[in-house]
């Protein structure tokens, strides 16, 4: 792993893999966590642990990610984000900026909320090119980085479709987003990795 593999994500990405109410595939998450260096702040860790502490312990989650405890990243954008965005969202924006400033440290900032993404584009434009939807990140893991196999990403995307059809909302997606997942499945089929 090199310094350009640093990833920051809000809690929805992790929870989608861990929750039985979403895609329920902790093994896939473990595989992804081994390929990149994921950075988390106290808030996101708390959001994940709150409902999934058992599975977090079982898979050794805390040993596979870098938890940033020394600084209170959520305080930096709190006046803008409090009750406007999720606390974990504005915490990870600040962490992503820190990694960006570290020079070629940031690979992706995973955010699924459209308003949060727009806010970053407007107010922290330096981060724009790193902002990804969860599923775009997964497809890039395969098609751009060659770190996940086509079969693995296809399996995850198919689980997403299945979960949506069962009325679940993995990565905050609903029935009307299924066409996007279908497009991504095609993209993975056509990519060379």
């Amino acid at each position: 792993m090199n310094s350009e593999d640093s990833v920051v994500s809000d809690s929805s990405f992790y929870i989608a893999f861990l929750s039985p109410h979403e895609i329920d595939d902790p093994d896939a998450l473990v595989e992804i966590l081994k390929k990149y260096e994921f950075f988390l702040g106290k808030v996101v860790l708390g959001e994940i642990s709150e409902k999934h502490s058992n599975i977090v312990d079982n898979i050794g989650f805390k040993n596979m990610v870098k938890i940033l405890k020394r600084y209170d990243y959520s305080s930096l954008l709190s006046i803008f984000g409090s009750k406007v965005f999720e606390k974990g969202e504005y915490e990870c924006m600040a962490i992503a900026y820190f990694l960006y400033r570290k020079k070629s440290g940031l690979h992706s900032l995973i955010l699924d909320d459209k308003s949060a993404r727009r806010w970053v584009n407007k107010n922290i434009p330096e981060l724009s090119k790193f902002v990804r939807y969860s599923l775009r990140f997964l497809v890039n893991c395969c098609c751009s980085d060659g770190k996940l196999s086509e079969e693995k990403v296809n399996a995850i995307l198919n689980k997403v479709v299945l979960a949506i059809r069962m009325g679940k909302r993995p990565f905050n997606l609903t029935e009307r987003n299924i066409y996007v997942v279908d497009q991504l499945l095609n993209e993975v089929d056509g990519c060379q990795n």
Partner: protein
Amino acid sequence: MSRTNYQLVEDKELKDAELLILLILGKAGGRISMLHLQKIFFTLWKFHPQVRRLVDFVPHLRGPYSSDLDDIVKNPTYVVDCWEYIPPKKGSEAERVKGGYLEITEKGEEIYRKIVDGLNKKARGDEDALALISAVDLIVSLYTRLEWDELLLLLYTDENIKEYSEKSELSRDIIKNSGKIVDRLIKKGIIPEEKRESLMKRIKSARWIM
């Protein structure tokens, strides 16, 4: 620790506080209101354990306030002749609230550039330095886009720091004008249009300033 060592630590902390003021001032383009400086310093104080050692903040009439910082700005010991303090003009409410301005001098600009170079070099191997310069880069440009009443509205209604806003003298006026202030924040892109309701709800639920 001996008395002499305590003195050395205090001297270093005072110098660091003055250098941080200059860093914020330089990043702000060479001119910043005292109100903005106090609130930016407060945010860095919440964020970074080393900044926390430099000064104290207490709840005050305009939210979080540090008398140490006020004193350092007006009577610098180590970083001298690097800025000029311009007291507020009489007669204007907005100018009174802003508490005057700091303006960087030619010498200040020169030292600012040296601080940035030094910190950037130090940041390559020192996480504390990297965290500090990243945080300054991130928030100074955001905070200085805010007018004084926009800054106070966002600050007073932030639940995460409510204990610092309970004594605020201006909260009633700010809340009264919140509709117009929110319009401006949306126009600037500081708050997304689709989050107007969320912000209005946050303002209404900020009981600690009512």
